[in-house]
């Protein structure tokens, strides 16, 4: 009964265009933001932060980025892991090269560097599309990982080949390195995610977003009505890589603390983020959140259920867990091929009319 647009009249195009046209959604959004910023920091402990919340925030950023590329612009990419590695190694080089630079700028700059690399590897998209482009980006994945493991300059000639993040602070509070607290890690990731999600929403609802979607839906018609394919595809690659680079930088500096390219940013990461985007829903900001939550929280919650509640052996539970997640992915995609976001949309449409559907 609360979920209504009737009586909520829009008197300007601005208010008609807003992200949450239904009042209930709007309040829900502010409520979630309030909980995330004010209540979560008070109740978070180390286990939940490390196992669930921080990876969820970081992978949502990566999923947002990939969703812009695949879901909005229709360019298939399997190079996510490689681009995350670019973000991570860029942040490492910046942190060690310029120790006085604030970590916020380090992460932003890493994003921009990754955007540049993304544009470079996005150039083939002007000639090839679909699966062939996926294979071309796969080459980017393998090349970048090879580059970072074989070129000692990138890991400052450290004998182990690992990169590790020194301690950096924001307003005097350490957010990276061993002394960072759970809450500070959580807050920096949350701030980045909220800001980036807001930017993604703006980009996708404006002219640029429409150009991307036009290219996705029918590239020839798009070009004939005036979309410059070069510009739209390369901006999609740039914005997408910017997001993925920031996710990689955060994953390395804030979450992992130490990393090795092949292990932390391998091809499995590319697939993980791709699955998040597909399961969450292509072409939807909410889908990035839903997909990341599904694939990050799913294994954690299953482990708690199987090991802690049912008392199964850890190794058995680990295998069963993989099978259940796989089955859940298939079931979700059979029930709703367009992902959790589409399911959510259907529920909301039904809810608008509930309980009087006529």
């Amino acid at each position, binding site marked *: 009964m609360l979920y209504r647009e009737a009586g909520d009249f829009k008197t300007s195009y601005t208010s008609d265009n807003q992200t949450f046209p239904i009042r209930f959604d709007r309040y829900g959004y502010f409520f979630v933001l309030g909980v995330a910023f004010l209540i979560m920091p008070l109740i978070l402990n180390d286990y939940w932060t490390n196992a669930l919340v921080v990876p969820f925030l970081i992978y949502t950023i990566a999923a947002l980025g990939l969703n812009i590329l695949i879901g909005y612009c229709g360019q298939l990419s399997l190079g996510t892991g490689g681009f995350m590695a670019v973000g991570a190694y860029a942040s490492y080089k910046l942190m060690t090269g310029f120790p006085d630079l604030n970590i916020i700028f380090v992460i932003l700059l890493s994003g921009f560097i990754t955007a540049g690399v993304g544009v470079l590897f996005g150039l083939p998209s002007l000639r090839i599309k679909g699966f062939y482009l996926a294979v071309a980006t796969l080459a980017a994945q393998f090349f970048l990982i090879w580059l970072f493991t074989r070129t000692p300059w990138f890991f400052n000639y450290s004998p182990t080949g690992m990169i590790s993040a020194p301690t950096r602070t924001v307003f005097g509070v350490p957010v990276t390195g061993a002394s960072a607290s759970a809450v500070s890690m959580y807050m920096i990731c949350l701030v980045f995610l909220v800001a980036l999600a807001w*930017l993604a929403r703006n980009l996708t609802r*404006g002219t640029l977003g429409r150009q991307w979607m036009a290219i996705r839906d029918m590239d020839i018609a798009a070009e004939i009505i005036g979309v410059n394919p070069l510009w739209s595809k390369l901006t999609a690659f740039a914005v997408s890589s910017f997001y993925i680079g920031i996710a990689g930088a955060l994953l390395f500096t804030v979450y992992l603390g130490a990393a090795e390219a092949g292990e932390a940013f391998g091809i499995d990461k590319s697939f993980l983020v791709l699955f998040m985007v597909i399961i969450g829903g292509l072409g939807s900001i909410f889908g990035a959140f839903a997909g990341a939550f599904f694939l990050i929280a799913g294994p954690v919650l299953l482990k708690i259920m199987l090991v802690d509640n049912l008392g199964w052996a850890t190794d058995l539970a680990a295998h069963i867990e993989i099978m259940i997640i796989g089955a859940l992915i298939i079931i979700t995609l059979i029930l709703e091929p367009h992902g959790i976001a589409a399911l959510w949309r259907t529920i909301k449409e039904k809810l608008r009319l509930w309980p009087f559907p006529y």
Partner: protein
Amino acid sequence: MLDTQPEEGYTTADGRKIGGVAMEMRNITLRFGGVTAIKDISFDIRWGEVRAIIGPNGAGKSSMLNVISGFYNPQEGEIIYKGYRRPRMRPYQVARTGIARTFQNIALFEGMSVLDNIMTGRLNHMKANIFQQALWWGTAQREEEENREKVEKVIDFLEIQHIRKTPVARLPYGLKKRVELARALAAEPSILLLDEPMAGMNVEEKEDMCRFILDVNDEFATTIVLIEHDMGVVMDLSDRVVVMDYGKKIGDGTPDEVRNNEEVIKAYLGVTDD
């Protein structure tokens, strides 16, 4: 210097003003490998007129439209547009010179709403850069509203208010055709190319579409180039008709002249009448 001298216009019987030459095709030849789709065709389009291109299937009509919209580059010949010879251009650059079109097979963006589809038609009028758009600030927001207003006028004009927020994929065929016209109109083109706007429509939808085409021509003084198979429609709507057959021009003139042209009757109308 202009490549053509502007010519005097005239006024039609129903009081519309037809201006000088807007676009002139000079000896256009288009080949695909060994196949010659268009052979040495020349004709002109005047400001404000409804110009039809007719001909049997495979005559090269759609190829001609694709040449005008820059999708194909002819091997020979030149296009004089607004008095200047048009250089080789990509289709999106042609779109920016004020040429919009609809397609024979509907080419809407199926994943977007009707409103977004029509807003896409206005993208050549939007100048905000990527950072302004990302922050949704200043120029970006103002532009979005100004263009939304223009788009709403087109929506009113074509009477599709009720489906504004509907995803295009859910619409029936006739409405899709109308949305496609709306998208082309939203660009405020100088020349509007319509590739079989009435194909596959029932009588009622055809009548609506005819009315819209005439209204567009009348109210916005938009020059219209039209490909259509329905002879009744063509003869009623157009000021001048080009007839093509096997890639060659076999007739050019007012509907009456074309109707009485021996060669046209033999090649085209005669066949359908028999």
